[in-house]
């Protein structure tokens, strides 16, 4: 990973898009403005980070802006990793899709959309991927009820059948 100085330089090169550069527990992270995510990733790709290893979502409830999208980039020749974080507010969870440049992001952005409700602008096919199409809500948000149901054991079967009628 870039050392602290390298990370600062990288953040400096990104200009106003980079809000913060954090070096924590051996993980280099740049927090960026969601409006510039495509240009940021493009710049980093030109610096050698050519492999988008993962796109995932985070819910920072009750912090604001609440939702986060994390892009893990990997430089295959130098074995160098960097994480790019973008935070979006929950009432307007919109961020640009990076699928046109990084085809691997297709399904992963769909998953983030499914689980957290982040809308990726410009995604070619933004549908739910894990939950049924008619599912309501985004289950990985922290204010979403865990769900589940009481377990029906054989000894309760009579009661259950009664309740169904």
């Amino acid at each position, binding site marked *: 990973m870039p050392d602290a100085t390298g990370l600062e330089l990288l953040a400096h090169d990104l200009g106003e898009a980079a809000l913060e550069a954090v070096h924590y527990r051996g993980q280099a992270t740049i927090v960026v403005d969601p409006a510039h995510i495509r240009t940021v990733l493009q710049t980093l790709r030109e610096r050698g980070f050519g492999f988008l290893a993962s796109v995932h979502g985070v819910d920072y409830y009750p912090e604001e802006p609440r939702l986060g999208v994390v892009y893990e980039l990997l430089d295959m020749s130098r074995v160098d990793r960097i994480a790019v974080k973008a935070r979006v507010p929950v009432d307007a969870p919109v961020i640009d899709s990076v699928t046109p440049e990084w085809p691997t992001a297709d399904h992963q952005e769909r998953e983030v959309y499914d689980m957290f409700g982040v809308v990726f602008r410009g995604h070619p096919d933004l549908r739910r991927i894990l939950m049924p199409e008619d599912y309501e809500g985004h289950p990985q948000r922290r204010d979403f009820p865990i*769900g589940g149901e009481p377990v029906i054991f054989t000894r309760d079967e009579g009661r259950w059948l009664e309740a169904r009628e």
Partner: protein
Amino acid sequence: MKREVLGPAGTAGTRVDPETLRVRSLNAHQLLRGGELEGANQPAHLEGEELERYVHERLVFTTLDSAVAWARSNSFFPLAFGLACCAMEQFQTAGPRMDIARFGYEAFRASPRQADLIILAGRVSIKMAPIIRRLYDQMLEPKWAISMGACCSSMGVFNNYALVPADKFMPIDVHVPGCPPRPEALMHGVLKLREMVQDNPEAGWRERYGAVGTEERP
């Protein structure tokens, strides 16, 4: 299409005449009494109690229903169908250590239309449930279902928004507990199912779910 009568030694088209049939049945009768066939020098004639015992030792009387149940229960055709980690244990029951073939269940079928037992090995997500129900509906009667592991019986540790218990959308005959159940446990479950089919076919899901009369008719 012309139907042909099969004669002795499979010679098609030759009708057996009544005289030959009579001789055959006489021969069979003689054999049953412990005698030798005609032409042999000393046919032993059994009478009374001896004949009774002789017949009892050589014949088994049963009802057609239990004979059919016996045959069915000793050759389930499970559907080759794994959902999650339980499937690994399911494979092992077919492996050399547990060897499900000892009981005649080794023919895992790749098509639900050839299977009569579905083993739900793993967790059933909400999106998967209609697909499993469809597979179950495609299986021919009589059919049985085993729910293997905690997830598809009670949702186990995944008792949340993602999963649905198998009982909610299809009838289950045997629940095998465990997370995942060892191959021995699955084997025990299958043998329990065999017991159920052999001894008490009425204990099936139709009775429990009040679905008698919904059988498929040919």
